[in-house]
């Protein structure tokens, strides 16, 4: 897609302005839309899993592929183990696979990537997602898929905060609810 000159229009385009909202005091939550997402799906067959995992790790410039619900950050991108036989590749191109190895897909436009950080980020996310975000069960590097108001979403806890991947079609609607519930913490949009 490098050759493309056309502008990408994100799901949240024009739906927000940067600034400080909600309760006064220190902003409990910081939102940042991460535009121009690059997201690839890599799927293996049970018997080719190990090989494909290695290729995927290589594609992001990492030593090895992560186990269930884990991620690794490589030199080129991040590798998320999202399904029993599938990985997400964020920020790097998915490897080409032969049908006997598995299959890959570009999903760069299928999700809206929203970064949620700040002292109250976890509390805010728990207003909506039924996930245990405690250190023990959700350390940095964890990736979990769950339901956000009946919609399947993916949550990745990165060094930078909570990376929320919202299905594109629902993204704006979920973004509106997030802001409603973030108001009580005071929030900033950057």
């Amino acid at each position, binding site marked *: 897609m490098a050759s493309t000159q056309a502008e990408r229009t994100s799901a949240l385009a024009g739906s927000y302005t940067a600034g400080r909202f909600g309760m006064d005091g220190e902003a409990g939550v910081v939102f940042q839309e991460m535009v121009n997402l690059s997201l690839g799906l890599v799927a293996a067959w049970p018997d080719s899993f190990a090989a494909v*995992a290695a290729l995927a790790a290589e594609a992001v410039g990492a030593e090895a592929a992560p186990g*269930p619900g884990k991620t690794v950050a490589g030199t080129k991108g991040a590798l998320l183990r999202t399904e029993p036989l599938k990985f997400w590749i964020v920020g790097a191109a998915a490897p080409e696979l032969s049908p006997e190895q598995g299959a890959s897909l570009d999903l760069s436009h299928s999700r809206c990537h929203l970064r949620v950080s700040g002292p109250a980020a976890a509390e805010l996310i728990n207003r909506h997602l039924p996930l245990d975000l405690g250190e023990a069960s959700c350390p940095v590097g964890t990736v979990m898929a769950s339901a956000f108001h009946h919609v*399947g979403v993916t949550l990745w806890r990165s060094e930078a905060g909570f990376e929320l991947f919202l299905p594109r079609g629902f993204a704006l609607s979920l973004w509106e609810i997030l802001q409603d519930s973030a108001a009580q913490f005071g929030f900033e949009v950057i």
Partner: protein
Amino acid sequence: MIRIRCPFCGERDHSEFTYGGDGSIVYPALDAPMEDWVKAVFERENPRGRQLETWHHTSGCRAWLLVERDTMTHEIFSVRLAHEGAGRVIEEGT
């Protein structure tokens, strides 16, 4: 709230899943006789107590699970991936 220990995702609320149905049904071959299909599609043992059933982790890892659950107490005795191959990959811890 039933808490289902998904082999891939860990313990989650049942609201993330979709109940499938009787997991003990063995669906006949596509060219099997009509009686077999009638039995498989329309007849249920419907036990009160322990039953094998399918759940789909719709909002999670999209895996179809085979769950042993008590239909009276809702206690869950075992959960495994319906797809043996994928199950093996998880068990091998990769």
